[in-house]
């Protein structure tokens, strides 16, 4: 069941404070957080968060199409290393600025769309 619209999105107060103060100072610095449940707002865009996945901090660079999702969706608790033995997969990688967002409805680690 979805969260009540009346309450608004959940964002950890201290995290929001840090983001706002960085935006005021026009500073870009990686922010460590354990708050996987915090919803990404437009204020977060352009910042990099180190989101804890229970084991280590996963760097998440926030882009516009991530707004409305939660930070935890981008820090899977299990990291997929690829197919065993298939170390020559001909998948191309390009450092483009068009990241995908998790599949809708997926709680914690969706497949790339």
């Amino acid at each position, binding site marked *: 069941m979805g969260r009540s619209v009346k309450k608004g999105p959940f964002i950890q107060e201290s995290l929001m404070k840090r983001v706002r103060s960085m935006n005021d100072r026009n500073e*870009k610095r990686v922010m460590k957080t354990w708050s996987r449940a915090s919803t990404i707002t437009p204020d977060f865009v352009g910042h990099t968060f180190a989101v804890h996945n229970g084991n280590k901090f996963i760097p*998440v660079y926030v882009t516009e199409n991530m707004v409305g999702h939660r930070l935890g969706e981008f820090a899977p608790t299990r*990291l997929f290393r690829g197919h065993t033995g298939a170390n020559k997969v001909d998948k191309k990688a390009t*450092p*483009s*600025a068009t990241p995908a967002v998790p599949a809708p409805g997926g709680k914690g680690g969706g497949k790339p769309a």
Partner: protein
Amino acid sequence: MRGEVLIEPLTDEPDAVYASGRRVFGGTSESPMDEAPTLTVIETRPFKDGLLVRFEEIGDRTAAELWNGRLLFVPEDELTPLGEGEVYQHELKGMTVELSSGEVVGTVADVFEVPQGLLLDVARERGTVLVPFSGEIVVDVDRARRVVRIDPPAGLLE
């Protein structure tokens, strides 16, 4: 029954790789390509998340079962050429990561797939650090020198 095999494509171009008449090689990435058994594609159709492929050399279910769990390869020179700024995922492993200033950060030890793209696990003298493979952080990838140049935000390498 007819010896069709279900394939999980690990390529960006399954339609081209499994096109009718194309040859693929079975084996491991270490085994030489000229010694690997060759399979010729007759027809391909989509099935669930994969492809059902009929090969000339596989005529029945018994022959198909021998190929269970195997990997299929194509020669690198038969792949479509890479575009500008593109690199194969398997090439990233082992590349040197350096800052725009030329200072070496470490070597790519692993590549992880996450919802927003790829993460490079960079091994340094002391431990490892994760670096997002995104356009905002990765400046360029030099395939010839095997170098990934990055411009990380403050605090990423701490």
